[in-house]
């Protein structure tokens, strides 16, 4: 059986056991959020939970690592705050 998820309204299939990040990549979707400062697209990079590039909102829970979360039938990916939602740029505190 193949799972079905939705990403921004479109259907994305997943094999049981695949991560949602892998399913997105397999479906030709390479990026699913943008950076705060430059608005640059981000998707999978390290593939193993280290880089946090692949952050995604799953069923309303933001900031999950797509490369680690196993796909589940019926998941809704990346609606709320999938830019990370951060408009303003530089600055900083330790």
């Amino acid at each position: 059986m193949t799972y079905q998820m939705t990403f921004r309204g479109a259907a994305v299939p997943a094999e049981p056991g695949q991560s949602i990040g892998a399913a997105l990549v397999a479906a030709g979707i390479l990026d699913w959020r943008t950076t705060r400062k430059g608005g640059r697209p981000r998707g999978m990079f390290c593939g193993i939970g280290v880089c946090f590039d692949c952050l995604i909102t799953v069923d309303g829970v933001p900031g999950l690592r797509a490369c680690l979360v196993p796909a589940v039938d019926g998941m809704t990916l990346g609606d709320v705050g999938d830019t990370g939602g951060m408009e303003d740029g530089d600055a900083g505190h330790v």
Partner: protein
Amino acid sequence: MPDTYDVAVVGAGPAGLAAAVESAAAGLGVVLIDAAGQPGGQYWRHYDENHARPDDRRGHHGWSTFTRLRERLDALTATGRIRYLPGHQVWLVTRDENGAFTLQLTPTTSTRVDGAEEAGLSRAETARALILCPGGYDRQLPIPGWDLPGVMAAGGAQALLKGHRTLAGRRAVVAGTGPFLLPVATGLARAGASLAAVVEANGTLGWLRDPVGAMSVPGKGVEALQYAALMARHRIPYRRGTVIREILGEGRVEAVRIARVDRVDGRLAGPEEEIAADLVALGWGFTPSLELPLMLGAETRRDVDGSLVVVVDDLQRSSVDGVYVAGEATGVGGAALAVAEGRLSAVALGVALRRTPESSRRAVVAVIGRLSREIRRGRRFAAAMHRAYPVPVAWTRWLSDSTLVCRCEEVSYGDLVRAHRDLGAEDPRTLKMLARPGMGWCQGRVCGFATAEISACLSRRETTAEDLRPLSTRSLAVPVTLGELAALADDLPGN
């Protein structure tokens, strides 16, 4: 208060698996904690066992070693000798006045989405000793365009294949340096990708630089020949002495521009060549994960390959009493070495805790001797590899003002130069405070090595362990919710 185990092993890769089963075999009470959902670590990463297929093992080396360790783990877990906690990340380790370690745990993926049972989760474990086997991840150097979708870490592209049966692109370029590029390239080719090129920065098939070291682990030679044969079979172009100058594309990878590196001064030498690709897999060796050892105050040093690693003695003991470290965290050296180190640390701990019966002392001494010799050979081999495939000395000269160094906080090389030149940031910590590399989500895991090297280079000196430490240290090993932190206050007594 949870039970106090004799030992907590962190990481269930080659080193941690070996350490856990060997500790239990030595009679110790063991808790094995691993972020991944199933054992194997990076080397033996495989598809979800609940949905396994026979061909999932293809391309795996040393699989029989894994199967044996796995069977022992299952048996020891079944009899309660090992408590195995997959899917748990250690985010903080503290020590109480009796010297016992408390490891704070958080689920790797949110229980709110994966439907996992809250009930099966542990929030903290305590142990009298630690064997830390946290492994590592691909080391990266910034390249113009490396944040385009379709660019991945070499190990990441491979993890997608091994762990998720997913091919990250149709036409791939694998680039960087080191022998690890070959299994990645051949793995992608076997899965059906067309390999446009393997772009290797170093020149010769560099074992020749240290033939004695290279011969110290005979099995490795065979493995290399197998990869060479596979490269030939798939007709993969192997471009030596060459690097990616720039990754090109609108919104995703479309091509790479490669150039030759001058052997003598490391400068890029023309003419440049453009190669079409939709996947670029990058790796410059590996960076050990040191947040847990550093959190505990373990002494570290800069290894032959330029990485920060934990200093251990000939029984895998770190400078911190009761903390053993095995695998990549003591120096990048591959899975076989990691297994040997994991075993040795467990055997040594068994002796230290006096769990080895008098009758088997002789046998244990012999085992220690054998493992130590194996480890010495493994280290010699690793050092030879590192010398053959160094990070090119002049790599920072390939950067341009706009090259992104920190992907999280979007800090460019130019930002670092200005913080150094105008604001007087002479070291990586000050660079970090003034320009923010390493301040974002990954907390410097990806850009830490590069930032340390750039900082040293701007100050015209060699990179030191001192440069690497501030970007390898993380106060929290992984992010945790404030709710979890707040729970900590209730769990702990007084101050």
